[in-house]
């Protein structure tokens, strides 16, 4: 019917998140916001970070967008993982996720640190889909860097 790889790409957990996404809906008063588009399919997301005044702690992630099951589930899973993280730790997790996504299946995402978002590990074998999984995380990174530019990863 369908292969084990496909079943692993579209685990029930991922399909559930895509149907019932966490954090969906924009909220007034965000500390930072980023809009990202996947040019190959036109999918887009607007993601907001709400940071507790006088602290570095993200109290809420909210987002709105449309796209494939992978991109919607990934935004939802990011929202779940990001709850109560500091901006610095959030940036570390984004880096970690990106490294796993770009590994073509070589690196399993760390479930300890990424939580259920580790279920997206199967995506990294499908290079055409990595952008789908990364869309929300790239938006989150842009939002983090608006607040803390010094956290920018060094390229190279």
């Amino acid at each position: 019917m369908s292969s084990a790889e496909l079943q692993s790409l579209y685990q029930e957990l991922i399909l559930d998140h895509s149907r019932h996404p966490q954090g969906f809906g924009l909220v007034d008063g965000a500390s930072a916001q980023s809009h990202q588009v996947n040019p190959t399919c036109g999918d887009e997301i607007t993601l907001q970070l709400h940071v507790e005044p006088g602290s570095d702690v993200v109290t809420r992630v909210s987002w709105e967008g449309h796209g494939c099951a992978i991109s919607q589930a990934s935004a939802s899973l990011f929202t779940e993982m990001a709850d109560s993280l500091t901006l610095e730790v959030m940036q570390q997790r984004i880096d970690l996720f990106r490294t796993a996504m770009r590994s073509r299946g070589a690196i399993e995402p760390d479930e300890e640190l990424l939580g259920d978002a580790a279920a997206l590990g199967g995506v990294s074998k499908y290079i055409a889909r990595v952008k789908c999984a990364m869309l929300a995380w790239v938006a989150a990174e842009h939002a983090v860097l608006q607040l803390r530019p010094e956290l920018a990863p060094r390229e190279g």
Partner: protein
Amino acid sequence: MSTAESTTRAGAFSAAESHAIRADFPILSAVVNDSPLVYLDSGATSQKPRQVLDAERSFYENDNAAVHRGAHMLAALATESFEDARSTVARFVGARDDEIVWTSNATEGINLIAYAMGNAGLGRGSADAEQFRLGAGDEIVVTEMEHHANLIPWQELAARTGATLRFIPVDDDGSLDLSGIRSIVTAKTRVLAFTHVSNVLGIVNPVAELVALAKEVGALTVLDACQSAPHLALNLADLDVDFAVFSGHKMLGPTGIGVLYGRARLLNALPPFLTGGSMITTVTMERAEYLPAPMRFEAGTQRISQAIGLAAAIRYLQNVGLDRIAAHESVLGERLVAGLSALPGITVLGQGAGSHRVGLASFDVAGVHSHDVGQFLDDRGIAVRVGHHCAQPLHRRLGVTSSTRASTYLYNTVDEVDQLIAGVADATTFFGVRP
């Protein structure tokens, strides 16, 4: 394949004919994700028969040299093959040899026209080039169903010249809405650029009607023939357009080669776009005199093996017969649309628009994104296009962000279309849209 087998004149190819055609395409025996490849993405790029691969290889092994320069034997052989390829293309579309300009692809062809017109507006070219000068008050008209390649070059030309870009809208069915055409194509219209066959909907546009309107107001016509040249017998002289473009790689030819057709008198009045070697007569340190068309537009070393490969592709298509190909694809296209639209939750874009269409269909699966549909199909070795197919405005008009497109060609079979339809049905189950 042998044409002796082509006894049936209408309908799909016989099993023996299909088998013979498929045997010419090495890639069609590929296995993808443990399933035989079902290639339904020819609208993006077609596969290539051995005859095309052999023509390119043979050129490099036996005749390779730069063309239109050099006095040696290979230079003469290469030049002859290159110019023969031009004649083959010219005869294929009912044009004269000097009306066929080589480009990299159709996109470059449209940009060539737009930039050459812009150059005319800057005072480049002879007195004849004045007819191409655009400015405030002039209008360029396209349609809402254009591929981005026949939209953005005109947006840019309008921005550079002060002209206004307008468009013929698409109705809810996906047809061009010609009800207000008289207020869109007017005495201000200088260019009317439109696609022959929609790359999303597969419907054939009313070329004669649009050309007649353009002629009435004295506008130039530019036809995007990318999705018609591979699939329908095309005669540009009969269609009476001023310019037309198409790409070799969508019609069994190599990538990197495309064709711009233009009426000789217009091409010879246009200033060049790209400049450099091979397009001049006399050059001093201050200025240059240009060759007539087509060489005026062919600066630099040309895509020689690709042109020869395209000529081989055209001979292949002619050997099978464009009428037979169109009849075969018509059967596949009707089966595709009927099968898909019978499934719950599937909407075929432009289904209500006209009956004259090529063998492709784009569709929306309610509740499932096209990327997910495409991924599911790929798992069975079925290759389709997903996304907006470089036609964002048309998708927006039809109320969707993206769609899944299955596009057939002469090497596809009824069985492959049925596999696609079954795959889409199973995808809706897999993603939980229906029980």
